[in-house]
Protein backbone atom coordinates (compact mmCIF):
# COMPACT_ATOMS: atom_id res chain seq x y z
CA UNK A 1 0.00 0.00 0.00
CA UNK A 2 2.71 2.46 1.02
CA UNK A 3 4.42 1.87 -2.33
CA UNK A 4 1.24 2.85 -4.09
CA UNK A 5 0.91 6.15 -2.27
CA UNK A 6 4.49 7.05 -3.06
CA UNK A 7 3.93 6.45 -6.74
CA UNK A 8 0.90 8.66 -6.92
CA UNK A 9 2.75 11.63 -5.48
CA UNK A 10 5.45 11.09 -8.13
CA UNK A 11 3.13 12.02 -10.96
CA UNK A 12 2.06 15.56 -11.71
CA UNK A 13 -1.52 14.90 -10.77
CA UNK A 14 -3.00 12.46 -8.35
CA UNK A 15 -6.17 12.19 -10.40
CA UNK A 16 -6.04 8.80 -12.18
CA UNK A 17 -5.89 8.86 -15.97
CA UNK A 18 -8.48 6.12 -16.22
CA UNK A 19 -11.04 5.49 -13.54
CA UNK A 20 -13.54 2.64 -13.78
CA UNK A 21 -16.42 2.40 -11.33
CA UNK A 22 -18.82 -0.53 -10.98
CA UNK A 23 -18.64 -1.35 -14.65
CA UNK A 24 -20.79 -4.17 -16.00
CA UNK A 25 -21.49 -5.31 -19.53
CA UNK A 26 -23.67 -7.96 -21.18
CA UNK A 27 -23.68 -8.84 -24.87
CA UNK A 28 -27.08 -9.21 -26.42
CA UNK A 29 -28.13 -12.28 -28.30
CA UNK A 30 -31.21 -11.54 -30.45
CA UNK A 31 -32.15 -8.76 -28.07
CA UNK A 32 -31.81 -10.96 -25.01
CA UNK A 33 -28.89 -10.11 -22.72
CA UNK A 34 -26.64 -13.14 -22.21
CA UNK A 35 -24.42 -13.93 -19.23
CA UNK A 36 -22.64 -10.71 -18.24
CA UNK A 37 -19.15 -10.49 -19.74
CA UNK A 38 -18.11 -8.00 -17.05
CA UNK A 39 -19.56 -7.67 -13.57
CA UNK A 40 -19.09 -4.69 -11.37
CA UNK A 41 -15.48 -3.86 -12.13
CA UNK A 42 -13.75 -0.94 -10.40
CA UNK A 43 -10.15 0.11 -10.87
CA UNK A 44 -7.86 3.06 -11.48
CA UNK A 45 -4.96 3.40 -13.86
CA UNK A 46 -2.50 6.23 -13.45
CA UNK A 47 -0.73 8.05 -16.25
CA UNK A 48 2.53 6.34 -17.25
CA UNK A 49 1.60 2.94 -15.83
CA UNK A 50 2.21 -0.33 -17.70
CA UNK A 51 -0.69 -2.62 -16.91
CA UNK A 52 -1.11 -6.14 -18.25
CA UNK A 53 -4.63 -7.51 -18.27
CA UNK A 54 -4.58 -11.31 -18.22
CA UNK A 55 -7.31 -13.86 -18.54
CA UNK A 56 -8.24 -16.92 -20.56
CA UNK A 57 -10.32 -16.64 -23.74
CA UNK A 58 -13.81 -15.48 -22.88
CA UNK A 59 -12.83 -14.08 -19.47
CA UNK A 60 -14.07 -10.62 -20.38
CA UNK A 61 -10.67 -8.99 -20.85
CA UNK A 62 -11.31 -7.94 -24.44
CA UNK A 63 -14.73 -6.58 -23.55
CA UNK A 64 -13.01 -4.41 -20.98
CA UNK A 65 -10.59 -3.05 -23.59
CA UNK A 66 -13.40 -2.33 -26.04
CA UNK A 67 -15.32 -0.37 -23.43
CA UNK A 68 -12.30 1.83 -22.72
CA UNK A 69 -12.21 2.97 -26.32
CA UNK A 70 -15.96 3.29 -26.83
CA UNK A 71 -16.12 0.45 -29.31
CA UNK A 72 -18.70 -0.87 -26.88
CA UNK A 73 -20.81 1.35 -24.67
CA UNK A 74 -22.78 0.69 -21.55
CA UNK A 75 -24.78 2.60 -19.00
CA UNK A 76 -23.98 0.18 -16.20
CA UNK A 77 -21.18 1.84 -14.33
CA UNK A 78 -18.79 4.64 -15.10
CA UNK A 79 -15.56 5.04 -17.07
CA UNK A 80 -13.75 8.33 -16.64
CA UNK A 81 -10.81 9.00 -18.94
CA UNK A 82 -8.71 12.07 -18.21
CA UNK A 83 -11.65 13.75 -16.51
CA UNK A 84 -14.22 12.94 -19.22
CA UNK A 85 -16.95 10.52 -18.32
CA UNK A 86 -17.18 8.47 -21.51
CA UNK A 87 -20.11 6.42 -20.24
CA UNK A 88 -22.20 9.56 -19.88
CA UNK A 89 -25.26 9.87 -22.10
CA UNK A 90 -24.28 13.42 -23.02
CA UNK A 91 -21.15 12.29 -24.92
CA UNK A 92 -21.11 13.81 -28.38
CA UNK A 93 -19.24 12.62 -31.46
CA UNK A 94 -16.69 15.33 -30.85
CA UNK A 95 -16.13 14.11 -27.31
CA UNK A 96 -15.60 10.59 -28.63
CA UNK A 97 -13.11 11.95 -31.16
CA UNK A 98 -11.17 13.52 -28.27
CA UNK A 99 -11.16 10.29 -26.26
CA UNK A 100 -9.88 8.29 -29.21
CA UNK A 101 -7.16 10.84 -29.81
CA UNK A 102 -5.95 10.29 -26.26
CA UNK A 103 -6.42 6.52 -26.12
CA UNK A 104 -5.16 4.56 -29.11
CA UNK A 105 -5.82 0.92 -29.74
CA UNK A 106 -3.80 -1.77 -31.51
CA UNK A 107 -5.77 -4.90 -32.42
CA UNK A 108 -5.05 -8.58 -32.82
CA UNK A 109 -5.09 -9.14 -36.57
CA UNK A 110 -2.41 -6.97 -38.17
CA UNK A 111 -4.03 -7.31 -41.60
CA UNK A 112 -7.35 -5.86 -40.58
CA UNK A 113 -6.15 -2.52 -39.28
CA UNK A 114 -4.01 -1.26 -42.13
CA UNK A 115 -5.96 0.95 -44.50
CA UNK A 116 -3.60 2.29 -47.13
CA UNK A 117 -1.61 0.60 -49.87
CA UNK A 118 1.68 2.20 -48.83
CA UNK A 119 3.19 2.01 -45.35
CA UNK A 120 3.80 5.74 -44.86
CA UNK A 121 0.32 6.60 -46.03
CA UNK A 122 -1.16 4.19 -43.56
CA UNK A 123 0.76 5.78 -40.72
CA UNK A 124 -0.52 9.15 -41.95
CA UNK A 125 -4.15 8.01 -41.76
CA UNK A 126 -4.67 8.97 -38.10
CA UNK A 127 -2.97 12.38 -38.30
CA UNK A 128 -4.96 13.10 -41.49
CA UNK A 129 -8.16 12.41 -39.58
CA UNK A 130 -7.00 14.79 -36.87
CA UNK A 131 -6.79 17.48 -39.53
CA UNK A 132 -3.13 18.29 -38.94
CA UNK A 133 -1.16 20.41 -41.41
CA UNK A 134 0.87 18.48 -43.98
CA UNK A 135 4.29 19.36 -42.54
CA UNK A 136 3.26 18.15 -39.12
CA UNK A 137 1.87 14.90 -40.58
CA UNK A 138 5.12 14.33 -42.44
CA UNK A 139 7.15 14.86 -39.29
CA UNK A 140 4.98 12.55 -37.24
CA UNK A 141 4.89 9.82 -39.88
CA UNK A 142 8.65 9.58 -40.11
CA UNK A 143 9.34 9.91 -36.40
CA UNK A 144 6.75 7.21 -35.68
CA UNK A 145 8.24 4.91 -38.30
CA UNK A 146 11.66 5.53 -36.77
CA UNK A 147 10.33 4.64 -33.37
CA UNK A 148 9.15 1.21 -34.52
CA UNK A 149 12.17 0.68 -36.78
CA UNK A 150 10.16 0.63 -40.01
CA UNK A 151 11.51 3.77 -41.70
CA UNK A 152 13.22 1.71 -44.39
CA UNK A 153 9.87 0.23 -45.36
CA UNK A 154 8.02 3.54 -45.68
CA UNK A 155 7.30 3.03 -49.39
CA UNK A 156 6.45 -0.68 -49.16
CA UNK A 157 3.05 -2.25 -49.63
CA UNK A 158 1.67 -3.59 -46.32
CA UNK A 159 0.67 -6.98 -47.73
CA UNK A 160 4.29 -7.79 -48.52
CA UNK A 161 5.41 -7.38 -44.89
CA UNK A 162 5.65 -10.08 -42.22
CA UNK A 163 3.08 -10.24 -39.42
CA UNK A 164 5.44 -8.59 -36.94
CA UNK A 165 6.29 -5.82 -39.39
CA UNK A 166 2.63 -5.17 -40.13
CA UNK A 167 1.92 -4.90 -36.43
CA UNK A 168 4.80 -2.44 -36.04
CA UNK A 169 3.29 -0.31 -38.80
CA UNK A 170 -0.05 -0.45 -37.02
CA UNK A 171 1.64 0.74 -33.83
CA UNK A 172 3.34 3.57 -35.73
CA UNK A 173 -0.07 4.57 -37.03
CA UNK A 174 -1.28 4.93 -33.45
CA UNK A 175 1.87 6.66 -32.16
CA UNK A 176 1.54 9.24 -34.93
CA UNK A 177 -1.66 10.43 -33.26
CA UNK A 178 0.38 11.12 -30.10
CA UNK A 179 -1.98 9.36 -27.70
CA UNK A 180 -1.31 9.37 -23.98
CA UNK A 181 -2.43 5.79 -23.59
CA UNK A 182 -2.29 2.80 -25.92
CA UNK A 183 -4.35 -0.35 -25.47
CA UNK A 184 -2.90 -3.48 -27.04
CA UNK A 185 -5.77 -5.92 -27.49
CA UNK A 186 -3.97 -9.28 -27.87
CA UNK A 187 -1.71 -7.60 -30.39
CA UNK A 188 0.87 -10.38 -30.28
CA UNK A 189 -1.47 -13.38 -30.42
CA UNK A 190 -1.11 -13.93 -34.16
CA UNK A 191 2.64 -13.31 -34.39
CA UNK A 192 5.53 -15.76 -34.46
CA UNK A 193 8.09 -15.62 -31.63
CA UNK A 194 10.35 -13.17 -33.47
CA UNK A 195 7.49 -10.83 -34.31
CA UNK A 196 6.31 -11.04 -30.74
CA UNK A 197 9.71 -10.08 -29.39
CA UNK A 198 9.90 -7.08 -31.73
CA UNK A 199 6.48 -5.84 -30.74
CA UNK A 200 7.14 -6.40 -27.03
CA UNK A 201 10.35 -4.41 -27.08
CA UNK A 202 8.51 -1.53 -28.77
CA UNK A 203 5.73 -1.61 -26.19
CA UNK A 204 8.29 -1.51 -23.40
CA UNK A 205 10.12 1.40 -24.98
CA UNK A 206 6.93 3.39 -25.53
CA UNK A 207 6.13 3.11 -21.86
CA UNK A 208 9.63 3.70 -20.51
CA UNK A 209 10.93 6.37 -22.89
CA UNK A 210 7.80 8.12 -24.09
CA UNK A 211 5.84 7.85 -20.86
CA UNK A 212 2.82 6.43 -22.67
CA UNK A 213 0.35 4.59 -20.45
CA UNK A 214 0.15 1.01 -21.69
CA UNK A 215 -2.71 -1.40 -21.15
CA UNK A 216 -1.84 -4.76 -22.62
CA UNK A 217 -4.46 -7.46 -22.97
CA UNK A 218 -2.77 -10.83 -23.33
CA UNK A 219 -2.63 -14.43 -22.23
CA UNK A 220 1.13 -14.80 -22.52
CA UNK A 221 2.79 -14.83 -19.11
CA UNK A 222 6.19 -13.75 -20.43
CA UNK A 223 4.57 -10.57 -21.68
CA UNK A 224 2.74 -9.85 -18.47
CA UNK A 225 6.05 -10.24 -16.64
CA UNK A 226 7.26 -6.99 -18.26
CA UNK A 227 4.41 -4.92 -16.84
CA UNK A 228 4.42 -2.90 -13.59
CA UNK A 229 1.06 -4.29 -12.66
CA UNK A 230 -0.99 -7.32 -13.60
CA UNK A 231 -4.77 -7.45 -13.48
CA UNK A 232 -6.35 -10.86 -13.87
CA UNK A 233 -9.90 -10.95 -15.12
CA UNK A 234 -11.82 -14.16 -14.65
CA UNK A 235 -15.52 -14.70 -15.31
CA UNK A 236 -15.99 -10.97 -15.74
CA UNK A 237 -14.56 -9.93 -12.42
CA UNK A 238 -11.13 -8.84 -11.23
CA UNK A 239 -9.60 -11.96 -9.72
CA UNK A 240 -6.27 -10.33 -8.86
CA UNK A 241 -4.59 -6.95 -9.17
CA UNK A 242 -0.97 -6.88 -8.09
CA UNK A 243 2.66 -6.97 -9.21
CA UNK A 244 3.74 -9.69 -11.65
CA UNK A 245 6.03 -11.13 -8.99
CA UNK A 246 3.23 -11.55 -6.50
CA UNK A 247 0.84 -13.03 -9.04
CA UNK A 248 3.27 -15.43 -10.70
CA UNK A 249 4.20 -17.02 -7.43
CA UNK A 250 0.55 -18.04 -6.87
CA UNK A 251 0.71 -21.15 -9.05
CA UNK A 252 -2.49 -22.74 -7.72
CA UNK A 253 -4.45 -19.58 -8.27
CA UNK A 254 -3.15 -19.16 -11.83
CA UNK A 255 -4.17 -22.71 -12.68
CA UNK A 256 -7.62 -22.09 -11.25
CA UNK A 257 -8.15 -19.17 -13.66
CA UNK A 258 -6.90 -21.13 -16.67
CA UNK A 259 -3.45 -19.57 -16.85
CA UNK A 260 0.06 -20.90 -16.38
CA UNK A 261 2.94 -19.85 -14.15
CA UNK A 262 6.46 -19.58 -15.60
CA UNK A 263 8.01 -23.06 -15.76
CA UNK A 264 10.67 -22.31 -13.14
CA UNK A 265 8.10 -21.09 -10.66
CA UNK A 266 6.00 -24.16 -11.32
CA UNK A 267 9.00 -26.41 -10.71
CA UNK A 268 9.74 -24.79 -7.35
CA UNK A 269 6.07 -24.97 -6.46
CA UNK A 270 5.91 -28.69 -7.32
CA UNK A 271 9.02 -29.34 -5.23
CA UNK A 272 7.60 -27.38 -2.31
CA UNK A 273 4.48 -29.53 -2.52
CA UNK A 274 6.72 -32.57 -2.13
CA UNK A 275 8.09 -31.07 1.07
CA UNK A 276 11.33 -29.45 -0.03
CA UNK A 277 12.40 -26.32 1.76
CA UNK A 278 12.33 -23.66 -0.98
CA UNK A 279 11.25 -20.02 -1.02
CA UNK A 280 7.80 -19.24 -2.44
CA UNK A 281 8.68 -16.10 -4.34
CA UNK A 282 10.93 -17.24 -7.19
CA UNK A 283 9.76 -15.82 -10.52
CA UNK A 284 12.74 -15.34 -12.80
CA UNK A 285 14.89 -18.24 -14.04
CA UNK A 286 17.88 -16.82 -12.13
CA UNK A 287 15.98 -16.79 -8.85
CA UNK A 288 14.89 -20.39 -9.40
CA UNK A 289 18.45 -21.48 -10.18
CA UNK A 290 19.78 -19.70 -7.10
CA UNK A 291 17.11 -21.22 -4.84
CA UNK A 292 17.75 -24.72 -6.17
CA UNK A 293 21.51 -24.52 -5.90
CA UNK A 294 21.13 -23.27 -2.35
CA UNK A 295 18.96 -26.29 -1.61
CA UNK A 296 21.58 -28.61 -3.12
CA UNK A 297 24.38 -26.96 -1.15
CA UNK A 298 22.41 -27.21 2.09
CA UNK A 299 21.74 -30.90 1.46
CA UNK A 300 25.39 -31.57 0.58
CA UNK A 301 26.53 -29.67 3.70
CA UNK A 302 24.03 -31.55 5.85
CA UNK A 303 25.44 -34.83 4.60
CA UNK A 304 29.01 -33.68 5.31
CA UNK A 305 28.05 -32.57 8.83
CA UNK A 306 26.39 -35.92 9.36
CA UNK A 307 29.49 -37.76 8.21
CA UNK A 308 31.66 -35.55 10.41
Amino acid at each position, binding site marked *: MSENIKNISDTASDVPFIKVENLSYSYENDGVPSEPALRDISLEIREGEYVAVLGHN*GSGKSTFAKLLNMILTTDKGKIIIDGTEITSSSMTDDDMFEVRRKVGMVFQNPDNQLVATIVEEDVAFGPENLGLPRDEIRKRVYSSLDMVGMRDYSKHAPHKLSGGQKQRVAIAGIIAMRPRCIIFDESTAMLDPLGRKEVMSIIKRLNRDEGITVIQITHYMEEAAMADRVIIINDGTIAADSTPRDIFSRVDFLKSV*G*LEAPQGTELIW*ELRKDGFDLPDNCVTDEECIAALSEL*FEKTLKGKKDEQA
Partner: protein
Amino acid sequence: MSRLELNDVSYVYGEGTPFRTEALKNIDLSFSDGKITGLIGHTGSGKSTLVQLLNGLLKPTSGKVLLDGKDIWEKPKEIGKIRFRVGLVMQYPEYQLFDETVHKDIAFGPKNCGLSDQEIENAVLEAAEFVGLDKNILDKSPFEISGGQKRRAAIAGVIAMHPEVLILDEPAAGLDPRGRREILGGLKEYQRRNGTTVILVSHSMEDMAYYCDEVVVMNKAKVLMSGCVSDVFSKSAELESVGLDIPRIAHIAKALSDMGYDLKGELYTVDGVKNAIEKYIASIS
Protein backbone atom coordinates in the same frame (compact mmCIF):
# COMPACT_ATOMS: atom_id res chain seq x y z
CA MET B 1 1.86 -48.60 -41.45
CA SER B 2 2.80 -46.05 -44.01
CA ARG B 3 6.19 -44.57 -44.06
CA LEU B 4 6.55 -40.96 -45.12
CA GLU B 5 9.90 -39.94 -46.55
CA LEU B 6 11.47 -37.15 -48.50
CA ASN B 7 14.16 -38.06 -50.94
CA ASP B 8 16.45 -35.19 -52.00
CA VAL B 9 13.52 -32.80 -52.24
CA SER B 10 13.94 -29.21 -53.36
CA TYR B 11 11.27 -26.62 -53.90
CA VAL B 12 11.62 -23.31 -55.69
CA TYR B 13 9.02 -20.53 -55.75
CA GLY B 14 8.74 -18.29 -58.78
CA GLU B 15 11.20 -20.17 -61.01
CA GLY B 16 12.27 -17.99 -63.91
CA THR B 17 11.17 -14.72 -62.30
CA PRO B 18 13.19 -12.14 -60.37
CA PHE B 19 11.41 -13.33 -57.23
CA ARG B 20 12.89 -16.83 -57.42
CA THR B 21 13.40 -18.23 -53.92
CA GLU B 22 14.56 -21.62 -52.85
CA ALA B 23 12.18 -22.65 -50.09
CA LEU B 24 13.72 -26.09 -49.63
CA LYS B 25 17.14 -27.38 -50.61
CA ASN B 26 17.86 -31.09 -51.02
CA ILE B 27 15.89 -32.37 -48.07
CA ASP B 28 16.34 -36.00 -47.01
CA LEU B 29 14.05 -36.87 -44.17
CA SER B 30 11.88 -39.67 -42.90
CA PHE B 31 9.17 -39.48 -40.30
CA SER B 32 8.98 -42.27 -37.73
CA ASP B 33 5.84 -44.38 -37.84
CA GLY B 34 3.39 -44.03 -35.02
CA LYS B 35 5.20 -41.18 -33.36
CA ILE B 36 4.62 -37.46 -32.91
CA THR B 37 7.29 -35.53 -34.72
CA GLY B 38 7.63 -31.85 -34.02
CA LEU B 39 8.60 -29.53 -36.86
CA ILE B 40 10.13 -26.29 -35.72
CA GLY B 41 11.81 -23.31 -37.35
CA HIS B 42 11.39 -19.62 -37.99
CA THR B 43 8.82 -18.19 -40.37
CA GLY B 44 10.41 -18.58 -43.77
CA SER B 45 12.58 -21.55 -42.78
CA GLY B 46 10.67 -23.73 -45.23
CA LYS B 47 8.49 -25.68 -42.83
CA SER B 48 5.20 -24.53 -44.34
CA THR B 49 6.43 -25.50 -47.79
CA LEU B 50 7.55 -28.86 -46.44
CA VAL B 51 4.14 -29.53 -44.96
CA GLN B 52 2.40 -28.72 -48.24
CA LEU B 53 4.74 -31.04 -50.12
CA LEU B 54 3.90 -33.91 -47.79
CA ASN B 55 0.23 -34.04 -48.77
CA GLY B 56 0.70 -33.10 -52.38
CA LEU B 57 -0.55 -29.52 -52.30
CA LEU B 58 2.79 -28.63 -53.82
CA LYS B 59 4.88 -30.72 -56.17
CA PRO B 60 8.62 -30.89 -55.53
CA THR B 61 10.75 -29.01 -58.04
CA SER B 62 13.12 -31.96 -57.80
CA GLY B 63 13.31 -35.06 -55.66
CA LYS B 64 10.58 -37.36 -54.43
CA VAL B 65 8.08 -37.54 -51.61
CA LEU B 66 7.59 -41.23 -50.78
CA LEU B 67 4.62 -42.77 -49.01
CA ASP B 68 5.11 -46.49 -48.36
CA GLY B 69 8.09 -46.31 -50.67
CA LYS B 70 6.00 -45.00 -53.58
CA ASP B 71 6.38 -41.60 -55.15
CA ILE B 72 3.16 -39.73 -54.36
CA TRP B 73 3.38 -38.00 -57.74
CA GLU B 74 3.64 -41.27 -59.68
CA LYS B 75 0.10 -40.75 -60.95
CA PRO B 76 -0.49 -37.01 -60.74
CA LYS B 77 -4.21 -37.46 -61.40
CA GLU B 78 -4.58 -39.47 -58.24
CA ILE B 79 -2.90 -36.96 -55.95
CA GLY B 80 -6.30 -36.42 -54.32
CA LYS B 81 -6.10 -39.92 -52.87
CA ILE B 82 -2.80 -39.06 -51.21
CA ARG B 83 -4.51 -36.20 -49.38
CA PHE B 84 -6.90 -38.66 -47.74
CA ARG B 85 -3.94 -40.69 -46.51
CA VAL B 86 -1.87 -37.71 -45.40
CA GLY B 87 -4.27 -35.34 -43.63
CA LEU B 88 -3.30 -31.70 -43.24
CA VAL B 89 -4.77 -29.25 -40.76
CA MET B 90 -3.70 -25.80 -41.88
CA GLN B 91 -2.89 -22.85 -39.64
CA TYR B 92 -6.01 -21.12 -38.26
CA PRO B 93 -8.11 -23.92 -39.80
CA GLU B 94 -11.39 -22.39 -38.60
CA TYR B 95 -11.37 -20.46 -41.89
CA GLN B 96 -12.25 -23.67 -43.70
CA LEU B 97 -15.66 -24.11 -42.05
CA PHE B 98 -18.51 -23.56 -44.49
CA ASP B 99 -21.40 -25.97 -44.14
CA GLU B 100 -24.78 -25.50 -42.49
CA THR B 101 -23.95 -27.49 -39.38
CA VAL B 102 -20.79 -28.53 -37.64
CA HIS B 103 -21.79 -32.14 -38.30
CA LYS B 104 -22.06 -31.61 -42.05
CA ASP B 105 -18.81 -29.70 -42.08
CA ILE B 106 -16.88 -32.47 -40.36
CA ALA B 107 -18.48 -34.92 -42.80
CA PHE B 108 -17.19 -32.99 -45.84
CA GLY B 109 -13.83 -34.79 -45.92
CA PRO B 110 -15.13 -38.32 -45.27
CA LYS B 111 -17.80 -37.78 -47.93
CA ASN B 112 -15.17 -36.81 -50.47
CA CYS B 113 -13.30 -39.98 -49.46
CA GLY B 114 -16.33 -41.91 -50.66
CA LEU B 115 -17.26 -43.52 -47.35
CA SER B 116 -20.74 -44.95 -46.81
CA ASP B 117 -23.30 -42.96 -44.82
CA GLN B 118 -22.88 -45.16 -41.78
CA GLU B 119 -19.10 -44.90 -41.95
CA ILE B 120 -19.35 -41.13 -42.28
CA GLU B 121 -21.64 -40.92 -39.26
CA ASN B 122 -19.24 -42.98 -37.17
CA ALA B 123 -16.23 -41.01 -38.35
CA VAL B 124 -17.88 -37.69 -37.49
CA LEU B 125 -18.92 -38.72 -34.01
CA GLU B 126 -15.56 -40.28 -33.24
CA ALA B 127 -13.62 -37.26 -34.49
CA ALA B 128 -15.81 -34.87 -32.54
CA GLU B 129 -15.19 -36.87 -29.41
CA PHE B 130 -11.43 -36.79 -29.84
CA VAL B 131 -11.26 -33.03 -30.15
CA GLY B 132 -13.68 -32.63 -27.24
CA LEU B 133 -16.70 -31.25 -29.11
CA ASP B 134 -20.00 -31.68 -27.35
CA LYS B 135 -22.72 -33.56 -29.21
CA ASN B 136 -25.15 -30.65 -28.95
CA ILE B 137 -22.66 -28.47 -30.82
CA LEU B 138 -22.79 -30.75 -33.87
CA ASP B 139 -26.19 -29.45 -34.94
CA LYS B 140 -25.23 -25.81 -34.61
CA SER B 141 -23.97 -23.63 -37.42
CA PRO B 142 -20.16 -23.47 -37.41
CA PHE B 143 -20.48 -19.69 -37.48
CA GLU B 144 -22.27 -19.36 -34.16
CA ILE B 145 -19.89 -21.35 -31.96
CA SER B 146 -16.93 -19.94 -30.05
CA GLY B 147 -13.43 -19.54 -31.49
CA GLY B 148 -12.06 -22.49 -29.57
CA GLN B 149 -14.92 -24.71 -30.71
CA LYS B 150 -14.40 -23.65 -34.33
CA ARG B 151 -10.78 -24.70 -34.07
CA ARG B 152 -11.81 -28.11 -32.74
CA ALA B 153 -14.45 -28.57 -35.43
CA ALA B 154 -11.90 -27.79 -38.14
CA ILE B 155 -9.40 -30.27 -36.73
CA ALA B 156 -12.15 -32.88 -36.45
CA GLY B 157 -12.89 -32.33 -40.14
CA VAL B 158 -9.47 -33.72 -41.00
CA ILE B 159 -9.27 -36.42 -38.33
CA ALA B 160 -12.61 -37.79 -39.56
CA MET B 161 -10.93 -38.83 -42.83
CA HIS B 162 -8.82 -41.27 -40.80
CA PRO B 163 -5.54 -40.27 -42.38
CA GLU B 164 -2.57 -42.56 -41.85
CA VAL B 165 -0.41 -39.50 -41.32
CA LEU B 166 -1.84 -36.42 -39.63
CA ILE B 167 -0.08 -33.09 -40.06
CA LEU B 168 -1.08 -30.06 -38.01
CA ASP B 169 0.29 -26.58 -38.63
CA GLU B 170 0.21 -24.71 -35.31
CA PRO B 171 -3.06 -26.22 -34.13
CA ALA B 172 -2.95 -24.23 -30.89
CA ALA B 173 -1.96 -20.82 -32.31
CA GLY B 174 -3.65 -17.96 -30.50
CA LEU B 175 -5.29 -20.15 -27.86
CA ASP B 176 -4.87 -19.54 -24.14
CA PRO B 177 -2.91 -22.04 -22.02
CA ARG B 178 -5.98 -24.08 -21.17
CA GLY B 179 -7.11 -24.28 -24.79
CA ARG B 180 -3.60 -25.28 -25.85
CA ARG B 181 -3.45 -28.07 -23.33
CA GLU B 182 -6.86 -29.42 -24.28
CA ILE B 183 -6.21 -29.46 -28.01
CA LEU B 184 -2.66 -30.79 -27.87
CA GLY B 185 -3.54 -33.25 -25.11
CA GLY B 186 -6.47 -34.51 -27.18
CA LEU B 187 -4.17 -35.04 -30.15
CA LYS B 188 -1.68 -36.95 -28.08
CA GLU B 189 -4.49 -39.16 -26.82
CA TYR B 190 -5.74 -39.70 -30.38
CA GLN B 191 -2.26 -40.60 -31.53
CA ARG B 192 -1.72 -42.98 -28.62
CA ARG B 193 -4.96 -44.84 -29.27
CA ASN B 194 -4.75 -45.06 -33.05
CA GLY B 195 -1.01 -45.21 -33.53
CA THR B 196 -1.25 -42.54 -36.23
CA THR B 197 1.91 -40.86 -37.37
CA VAL B 198 1.57 -37.21 -36.37
CA ILE B 199 3.61 -34.24 -37.54
CA LEU B 200 3.14 -31.15 -35.41
CA VAL B 201 4.36 -27.75 -36.55
CA SER B 202 4.82 -25.36 -33.66
CA HIS B 203 6.73 -22.31 -32.53
CA SER B 204 6.54 -23.31 -28.91
CA MET B 205 9.54 -25.22 -27.62
CA GLU B 206 7.63 -26.01 -24.44
CA ASP B 207 4.90 -27.74 -26.47
CA MET B 208 7.51 -29.64 -28.47
CA ALA B 209 9.15 -30.88 -25.29
CA TYR B 210 5.87 -31.89 -23.77
CA TYR B 211 3.99 -33.49 -26.66
CA CYS B 212 6.53 -34.72 -29.20
CA ASP B 213 8.68 -37.84 -29.43
CA GLU B 214 10.99 -36.53 -32.11
CA VAL B 215 11.88 -33.10 -33.41
CA VAL B 216 12.98 -31.81 -36.82
CA VAL B 217 14.53 -28.34 -36.79
CA MET B 218 14.41 -26.38 -40.03
CA ASN B 219 16.61 -23.43 -40.82
CA LYS B 220 17.09 -21.56 -44.10
CA ALA B 221 15.49 -24.17 -46.36
CA LYS B 222 17.45 -27.02 -44.79
CA VAL B 223 17.11 -29.50 -41.98
CA LEU B 224 19.36 -28.20 -39.20
CA MET B 225 18.95 -31.25 -37.00
CA SER B 226 16.55 -34.03 -36.24
CA GLY B 227 16.26 -36.71 -33.62
CA CYS B 228 14.52 -37.55 -30.39
CA VAL B 229 13.46 -34.68 -28.16
CA SER B 230 16.22 -35.04 -25.59
CA ASP B 231 18.95 -35.19 -28.25
CA VAL B 232 17.72 -32.04 -29.94
CA PHE B 233 17.26 -30.04 -26.75
CA SER B 234 20.68 -31.04 -25.50
CA LYS B 235 22.15 -29.02 -28.36
CA SER B 236 21.02 -25.70 -26.97
CA ALA B 237 24.02 -23.77 -28.31
CA GLU B 238 23.29 -24.87 -31.85
CA LEU B 239 19.62 -23.98 -31.51
CA GLU B 240 20.43 -20.59 -30.10
CA SER B 241 22.85 -19.89 -32.94
CA VAL B 242 19.88 -19.85 -35.34
CA GLY B 243 17.76 -17.80 -32.96
CA LEU B 244 15.67 -20.67 -31.58
CA ASP B 245 15.29 -21.22 -27.90
CA ILE B 246 15.09 -24.27 -25.68
CA PRO B 247 12.26 -24.55 -23.14
CA ARG B 248 12.80 -22.30 -20.12
CA ILE B 249 12.85 -25.28 -17.82
CA ALA B 250 15.67 -26.79 -19.90
CA HIS B 251 17.62 -23.57 -19.38
CA ILE B 252 17.28 -23.93 -15.62
CA ALA B 253 18.30 -27.59 -15.71
CA LYS B 254 21.25 -26.78 -17.93
CA ALA B 255 22.43 -23.97 -15.66
CA LEU B 256 22.29 -26.33 -12.67
CA SER B 257 24.15 -29.08 -14.56
CA ASP B 258 26.80 -26.56 -15.60
CA MET B 259 27.25 -25.66 -11.93
CA GLY B 260 28.24 -29.26 -11.31
CA TYR B 261 25.03 -30.77 -10.00
CA ASP B 262 24.58 -34.13 -11.59
CA LEU B 263 20.99 -34.08 -12.92
CA LYS B 264 19.90 -36.99 -15.09
CA GLY B 265 16.75 -37.74 -17.07
CA GLU B 266 14.33 -35.83 -19.27
CA LEU B 267 15.60 -32.34 -18.56
CA TYR B 268 13.13 -30.46 -20.75
CA THR B 269 9.77 -30.74 -19.01
CA VAL B 270 8.79 -29.55 -15.54
CA ASP B 271 8.02 -33.11 -14.45
CA GLY B 272 11.25 -34.43 -15.88
CA VAL B 273 13.38 -31.84 -14.11
CA LYS B 274 11.44 -32.30 -10.90
CA ASN B 275 12.12 -36.05 -10.96
CA ALA B 276 15.78 -35.46 -11.75
CA ILE B 277 16.15 -33.04 -8.84
CA GLU B 278 14.42 -35.37 -6.41
CA LYS B 279 16.61 -38.25 -7.52
CA TYR B 280 19.70 -36.11 -7.21
CA ILE B 281 18.78 -34.93 -3.72
CA ALA B 282 18.09 -38.52 -2.67
CA SER B 283 21.52 -39.50 -3.97
CA ILE B 284 23.36 -36.80 -2.03
CA SER B 285 21.51 -36.93 1.28
